[in-house]
């Protein structure tokens, strides 16, 4: 291939969440269903199952699905989808006394709460700390809605539109099958079922083709490595090393299970429930047919048996009748994500433990950038890949900071796990600097000024003040002048919450209506 030849055949290797989202976004952008000039193929091993966990998404997924021409109703029906309005963090703030539960919400809402234009946090901090409402309930109507298991919209709301911002919980295996069908039938992705044995490299160090067990050689112009943590192309073939961040993010094991609902009308939470334990945390995700529950922990701090006990006691009575699956991972990322004519997306590129469910979001972001900036020829690769590597390196670094934030400002000291997590040398400097600044300054939009920041001001505020982070008010009070407006906005949050509470169906009611009737497009 010449450096000026057009790169017209993209091969995605891997059919997990990352592979299908990427193939779909590329095929849509290149209009493969109607136009022969670009091809997108997806090669998947018939023998290696997909990871099949990863049930939490971000609101960007709505835009992704809609732009791929997917019906929200079909998606929900086929993937056991439910509506996610944020996360509830239980027992993260301090060590719970026996049977005690404390929690805070990190809602997704930016409709009735956006600190970007007017930062209510300052006025909240100055309220009497004994008597004020918690930060989430004081500033976000969505916290109220979540706490009573209400849905973020009504059956009369058009598909993909929201009354309160939302993303989804989904069944990862069903989602991969659903996307497979849609990408092949509607978007013109070519599907090849085969085990890739190795990639062939040409004299200039580019991947030229794949050697497969079942269908011989498959050649292509550009390769997307979605092979999961093995990173067959970028890692094994092109030799890009993996950098562990174990010194910052300790968790490296998980145990996952599926928990049936007790009955047909058990409430379904419209948020992920992340509960901190002595040596890790459990996720609890309500899908329409079951809950996905699991524990994430650090092998250096506890044993598998111990972790399983914690998980089982969290699940309660049903625990002994369920089957459990152990998973290992290492948080970290590749030195680069894009080398030559190969980019890694998904677990092959990076992984940070799932506390903020950011993996699928970053897959969407990666695929969108790849589609938008897709190199026309090999001559274009250098510029685009450097730009891409810079942006994603930054996105991952920022994600690490934000995940670490949940751990390092806790007052829990009930184990080495929490003590080690708060050790200064485990906290990235970029986060230390911010935390120091915020002891005497209110977090501001200028702390998050980069266009591609994954977590911005509102998210930080919910976690910081949910975790009862102390910002010294004496430095702030004399700079505040808009008390009237603040009072109006605090009242507004409560009245909107009351109104929504009356109007909105329960989460389960809405899911039943979606199953029976579906959303309309308008």
């Amino acid at each position, binding site marked *: 291939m010449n450096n000026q030849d057009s790169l017209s055949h993209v091969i995605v290797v891997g059919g997990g969440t990352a592979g299908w989202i990427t193939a779909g976004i590329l095929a849509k952008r290149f209009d493969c269903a109607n136009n022969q000039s670009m091809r997108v193929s997806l090669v998947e091993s018939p023998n290696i199952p997909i990871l099949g966990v990863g049930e939490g998404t971000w609101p960007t997924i709505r835009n992704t699905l809609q732009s791929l021409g997917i019906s929200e109703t079909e998606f929900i029906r086929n993937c056991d989808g439910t509506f996610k309005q944020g996360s509830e963090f239980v027992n993260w703030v301090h060590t719970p006394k026996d049977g005690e539960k404390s929690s805070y919400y990190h809602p997704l809402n930016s409709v009735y709460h956006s600190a970007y234009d007017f930062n209510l946090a300052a006025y909240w901090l100055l309220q009497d700390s004994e008597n004020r409402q918690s930060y989430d309930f004081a500033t976000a109507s969505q916290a109220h809605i979540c706490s009573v298991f209400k849905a973020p919209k*009504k*059956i*009369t*709301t058009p598909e993909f539109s929201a009354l309160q911002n939302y993303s989804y919980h989904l069944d990862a295996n069903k989602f991969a099958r659903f996307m497979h069908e849609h990408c092949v039938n509607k978007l013109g992705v070519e599907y090849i079922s085969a085990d890739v044995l190795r990639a062939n490299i040409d004299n200039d160090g580019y991947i030229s083709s794949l050697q497969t067990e079942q269908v011989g050689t498959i050649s292509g112009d550009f390769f997307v490595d979605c092979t999961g943590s093995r990173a067959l192309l970028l890692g094994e073939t092109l030799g890009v090393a993996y950098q562990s961040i174990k010194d910052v993010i300790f968790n490296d094991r998980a145990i996952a299970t599926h928990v049936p609902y007790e009955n047909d009308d058990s409430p379904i939470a419209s948020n992920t429930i992340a509960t901190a334990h002595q040596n890790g945390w459990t996720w609890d995700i309500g899908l329409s047919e079951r809950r996905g529950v699991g524990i994430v922990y650090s092998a250096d701090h506890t044993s598998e048996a111990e972790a399983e006990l914690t998980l089982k006691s969290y699940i309660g009575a049903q625990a002994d009748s369920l089957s459990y699956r152990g998973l290992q991972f290492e948080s970290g990322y590749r030195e680069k994500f894009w080398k030559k004519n190969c980019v890694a997306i998904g677990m092959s590129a990076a992984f940070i433990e799932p506390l903020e469910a950011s993996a699928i979001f970053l897959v969407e972001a990666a695929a969108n950038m790849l589609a938008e900036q897709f190199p026309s020829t090999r001559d274009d690769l250098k510029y685009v890949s450097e730009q891409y590597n810079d942006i994603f390196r930054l996105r991952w670094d920022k994600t690490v900071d934000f995940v670490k934030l949940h751990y390092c400002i806790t007052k829990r000291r009930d184990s080495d796990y929490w003590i080690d997590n708060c050790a200064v040398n485990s906290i990235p400097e970029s986060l230390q600097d911010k935390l120091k600044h915020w002891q005497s300054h209110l977090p501001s939009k200028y702390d998050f000024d980069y266009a591609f920041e994954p977590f911005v001001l509102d998210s930080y505020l919910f976690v910081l003040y949910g975790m009862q982070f102390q910002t010294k008010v004496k430095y702030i009070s004399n700079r505040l002048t808009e008390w009237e407006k603040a009072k109006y906005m605090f009242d507004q949050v409560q009245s909107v919450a009351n109104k929504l509470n009356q109007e909105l169906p329960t989460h389960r009611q809405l899911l039943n*209506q979606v199953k*029976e*009737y*579906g*959303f*309309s*497009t*308008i």
Partner: protein
Amino acid sequence: MSNYQPLDKSKHQELKIKPIHPCVLAKEKGVIPIGLRETVTACAEYPVVFVKDDSTGQFRLVVLVGLRPNQSLFYSSDGWLGKHIPKSARSSPIALTQIASDEHSLIVCVDTDSKMLSKVDGRSLFDDNGAQSDFLNELIADAEDLYADHQLVKPFCDLLLEQNLLSPFSLNVEAEDGSNLELKGLYSIDEAKLNQLDKDMLIKLRDQGALPFVYAMLFSMARIDSLLKRYNEQSR
């Protein structure tokens, strides 16, 4: 309240129906569902639009008879104030219902709580030999017609949605008395999109017999002014 029971000769042989004025059903309804064919007559008097059913999110074809939620400018204790009484607002104790297990078979039901029923006055449902009276047959035919006409709405609506021809709108008018009348959550034909429709799609609409109803809905928008006029007259 109503209590529909399957019509049964042995139980209902003696029932008679008293004629009372025909619009009792529509007292506080600002919108009244109509069937597809009814659009053609209704459009001369009322705006014909779609609204969503609150509990299913499904579209219903309706006529607007008021300019505020639950306001009827046509209901009066002396009778309906318009020429065309929407069929589903005419009360009849006879209705058809689907059998849950089989959506294609219908059974004839009678509302045993209806005030129109009597054992003394009115016209008999069954004759002396126990056969259905002509009157009952007429009522059943009306009910069948109403049912069939309503069944046509969904395919029509799906066709419009598929062609992207519906748009949401709110009705917002100011009355003479200064009050602001508002109705939200209405859907109607998007004229601009209709005009941009490519030939094949237009032919599809024509072949499916949808075009007259599309235009009937468009023309009916002019009836918003008639409603306002009526409102102004009534509130003077």
